[in-house]
């Protein structure tokens, strides 16, 4: 067996690179559109990162503009902008990851205990609904619930004889609201993964525990949760890898350019979008973007390292 494989591998070596290229031409052609695609839309923009190191001049273009070194970064760091953007992005993501997984696990476990098939099916379908809609509609839904003049919440407050609530001019409430909205939109989707993992548990183990007199709490505590542990750990680690990347659509469609709320709601993505699309300040936008990419890359590497330690099967590379 080993002899045979040795022969095969020396066979490959003897063939030149060109011959190998020709031999697998069909498979290469099959990959070609994707290779071109990622070259055009992901690799071609990379040299443009240079714009972060210049004082961008529209007429002179990225590479003709004046080189200013790290000045764009220094300005962002000194003004405290970089810190507050990073803080907001990371804290929101931490809340999304921890609460998101917690709620998803709870819903999946409860759904598994429910026996009524029809109830299960209908509720799962309804829970999936928020995942299918665009972030634009999410923004509109939130607005129609919370706005001052016609919002549903204020209607109820007025009906109860209470004072109206003005969340759109109160930055302090948005961390709670945005986390809640995120949970609302993602829990149906996230719980499916855990629900599938629970369904994968050997039914005999659970039945055996029942026979041995384990009650529902004990079955959840000693069988279901431990079996979910690897899935939970891996999903959390992967999510942590993206901790400096924000959910732009969610924040932009809910907050938009309402600068009163920026203090607690401005994340890296929304800042970069405004800098690019409203201020045309490409150098600042790119400086923040490059900083985000570098930090994000380092964190993914760390997360992957951790996953590899826990279970090499799940590591990315």
């Amino acid at each position: 067996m080993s002899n045979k494989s040795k022969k095969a591998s020396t066979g490959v070596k003897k063939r030149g690179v060109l011959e190998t290229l020709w031999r697998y031409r069909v498979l290469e052609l099959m990959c070609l559109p994707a290779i071109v695609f990622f070259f055009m839309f992901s690799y071609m923009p990379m040299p443009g990162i240079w714009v972060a190191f210049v004082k961008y001049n529209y007429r002179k273009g990225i590479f003709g503009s004046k080189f200013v070194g790290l000045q764009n970064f220094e300005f962002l760091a000194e003004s405290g902008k970089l810190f507050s953007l990073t803080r907001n992005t990371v804290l929101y993501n931490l809340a999304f990851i921890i609460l998101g997984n917690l709620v998803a696990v709870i819903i999946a476990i409860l759904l598994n205990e429910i026996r009524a098939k029809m109830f299960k099916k209908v509720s799962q379908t309804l829970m999936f609904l928020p995942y299918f809609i665009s972030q634009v509609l999410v923004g509109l839904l939130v607005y129609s619930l919370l706005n001052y003049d016609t919002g549903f919440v204020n209607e109820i407050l007025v009906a109860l004889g209470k004072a109206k609530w003005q969340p759109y001019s109160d930055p302090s409430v948005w961390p709670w609201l945005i986390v809640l909205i995120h949970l609302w939109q993602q829990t149906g989707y996230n719980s499916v993964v855990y629900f599938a993992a629970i369904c994968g548990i050997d039914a005999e183990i659970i039945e055996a525990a029942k026979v041995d007199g384990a009650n529902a709490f004990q079955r959840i505590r000693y069988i279901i949760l431990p079996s979910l542990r690897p899935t939970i750990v891996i999903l959390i680690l992967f999510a942590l890898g993206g901790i400096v990347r924000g959910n732009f659509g969610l924040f932009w469609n809910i907050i938009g350019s309402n600068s009163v709320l920026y203090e607690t709601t401005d994340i890296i993505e929304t800042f970069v979008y405004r800098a690019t699309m409203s201020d045309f300040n490409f150098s600042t936008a790119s400086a923040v973007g490059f900083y985000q990419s570098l930090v994000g890359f380092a964190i993914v590497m760390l997360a992957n390292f951790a996953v590899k330690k826990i279970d090499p099967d799940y590591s990315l590379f």
Partner: protein
Amino acid sequence: MAKNKEIEFEASNSKIKLGTSDYIVRGTGYVLVTLYAIACVFPFLIIIGTSFTSESYIRTHGVQLFPREFTLKAYEMVIGSGNIWKSYLLTIVLTLIGTVCGLLIIAMTGYALQRKDFPFRNAISFYIYFTSLFSAGLAPYYLLMTQTYKLLDSYLAVLLPLMMSPWLIILMKNFIKQIPHEITESGKIDGAGDMTIFVYLILPMIKPALATIGLFLALGYWNEWYQSSLFLTAKVTVKPLQYTLYEIVNKLDALRNSVAGQYVTLTDIPEQSVKMANAVLATGPIVLLYPFVQKYFIGGITVGAVKG
């Protein structure tokens, strides 16, 4: 045989002794799941209810769960302007072309990358995967698309970037991996080329994968507003549905940004019911379709969620 009997016995046994804890857990389950399910539907009912309510009633009483002073005026306004059908057509065309092309490319790439005898599979996989680890960021992307590729105000700027993603290619690769390698081998023995094997042997076997990934792509196109917000300016009159909704929802911003906006008075700002009617029309097809397609999504999530 004896084992089967045992399981049956246990199953029936477990039915008898449902303890207090079971009732607590199940009761909590029914209550919490019901509450969450209601919360998921509730905002949609407000949108629908308000879209059929008269504007004057909304002004004085706010948005409505059930239509009050029932009227179709908002829908007449939205449909009457005529542009909504063009938006529908554009969105459908973009979704169809993008999904079919994307699906074909993703399937081909996924097949080639899971072939264990393909010597470049690791290099190409890394080349694709790297783009999700490190990106140039928005500003360089925007400058490249508008200045080098000259795609400002072009529908291509919406169609092309959504066609594939590293994640979808990996998902497809993992799906195809589950097909035994012997299928490819048997095709080779019969003298078939790689393309023939892919089209006649592999494609028919990965229908569920095509459905799942096709749906992810189609959903991406249907819900697209982001690329449009970057690249379609006021010069383009017909825009994808969700971006049309986006513009109406953010009309004030849109007016401020467009040159013409300086001469538009505040009365032109769309009213609540019109916003809602637009939302219903833009989202309706997805909401009506998704109960039938959700099983493919669930299949996709469970295959692709964890394994990278």
